């Protein structure tokens, strides 16, 4: 049996959650003040996901910009974050780029596209 300690981000109270687990199975969640805390804990220990944001180089910008900010078009597994970050290094995209343009397809094999979050002329 193992215990995972988490801080709930549901509200400013920031309850300290303890999840007791037997292998992959959740035995008990304690420390939460409301139901949202338990739901958060269950998701965090079984399938934690994040939107990942970064910025990549551009070339040919008439506005003189050097970077375009990007994000994953949807959540990716938290454990993939560093891999996605590494695969963005060295990437350079031509201008103009518009918000929502796909900058990298299926980034790091996550099945999720990396899209631009700013218009760069």
């Amino acid at each position, binding site marked *: 049996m193992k215990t995972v300690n988490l801080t*709930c981000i549901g509200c400013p109270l920031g309850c300290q959650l303890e999840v007791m687990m037997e292998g992959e199975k959740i035995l008990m969640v304690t420390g939460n003040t409301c139901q949202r805390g338990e739901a958060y804990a269950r998701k965090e220990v079984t399938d934690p996901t994040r939107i990942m944001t970064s910025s990549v180089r551009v070339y040919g910008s008439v506005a003189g910009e050097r970077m375009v900010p990007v994000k994953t078009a949807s959540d990716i597994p938290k454990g993939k974050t560093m891999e996605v970050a590494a695969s963005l290094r060295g990437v350079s995209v031509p201008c103009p780029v518009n918000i929502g343009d796909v900058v990298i397809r299926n980034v790091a094999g996550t099945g999720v596209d990396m899209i631009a979050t700013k218009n760069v002329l």
Partner: protein
Amino acid sequence: MEQKAYHLIIIGGGPAGLSAAVAAYDAGERSILILERDTRLGGILNQCIHNGFGLHTFQEELTGPEYAQRFIDQVKDRNIDYKLDTMVLSISKGEGNAKQVVAVNEADGLMQLTADALVLAMGCRERSRGALNIPGFRPAGIFSAGTAQRLVNIEGYLPGRRVVILGSGDIGLIMARRMTLEGAKVLVCAELMPYSGGLKRNIVQCLDDFDIPLKLSHTVVRIEGKERVEAVVIAEVGPDRKPIKGTEERYECDTLLLSVGLLPENELTIGLEADMSRVTNGPLVNESLETSIPGVFAAGNVLHVHDLVDYVSEEAHLAGESAAAYIASLEAGNGPVPHAGVLITFSGGVRYTVPATADVSRIEKWLKIRYRVGDVMTNRVVSLYLNGNRVLTKKRRVMAPGEMEELVLLKKQVEEYPVVESMEIRIEEDKA
């Protein structure tokens, strides 16, 4: 010198200025000019590339640049005038109700502009190392978190590889994650106070996610290195916030990021001789977000530092509407409407309120009072008293200095009080 007159000049083209412009336009005002110092509209949001913006305003999570673009589009759709790369040198009272704005840019040179009303939306800047007292040399490799953010996200340049962060403000937390993703190693985040000034979500997703330790009640006591930072020594502090001998820990690193607070940028406001708050370092405003100078309004981080841009937009919307109403009143020949506000007093741990005064007869639908507390508090009841009568209560399980609080007083709640002589916010222990 170029001379031009507008009804409304907005100083700053960040989230506050953009929202104020749109609101003033939608209230019927057409003679509006936005002056922006940077080469683009959007202000600090341009470098805040992380997501989490817009949940209140757009019911979706946007990144900073996306959030800014929504407002930039609204400004452009309305053909509202703006000037970029334009520095405002001074603002002052002119003849009658006029306000003078002296500004400069390369294309127009020096400009003497007049306006009936101004919205101050200059934002804030970071406290620098000068505001702290860290012994040691002044080597390269010490950056404010916001400077590092600009370098990484806009310039595309990683300012260091092994990083210590002092202060747990949101920008520092965000940069801990950002630099980690760019391949740097963030060793520790030290916070002087026994609690973090950042949002819980940022502590979890920027520090915990990457196993970066947060050391509360710790500070930097020494910086080593002459040319470049070579190491940073941090130590625990006691309740007096003085370092405790024997608790020093040395971290070999090349970079120290400072995330030790933000200060409203009010040189222009002070030049105008508007009454200022010693707590927020912003101007004192009434329920219409008007400063002590009639026709001069303020919103956003220039007024008080916010944690959520959504609240900036909302506040600036009110400032823009108020400015339009002020101008309409001048146009109708009524002149400025005299203000009959009372000071909002407070006790029990409230540090300040925005607005600072309120004329309840001017409340349209509701009055939103924003405030911050000075310490972490649990199980409290916040009450609002008019003429000594409790008209509003709100239970708060927890309040922290890092999270702005608000009370909403509805018009119907004040209607029983045709004459308001006092308005007080009290925080009390919740005994229930």
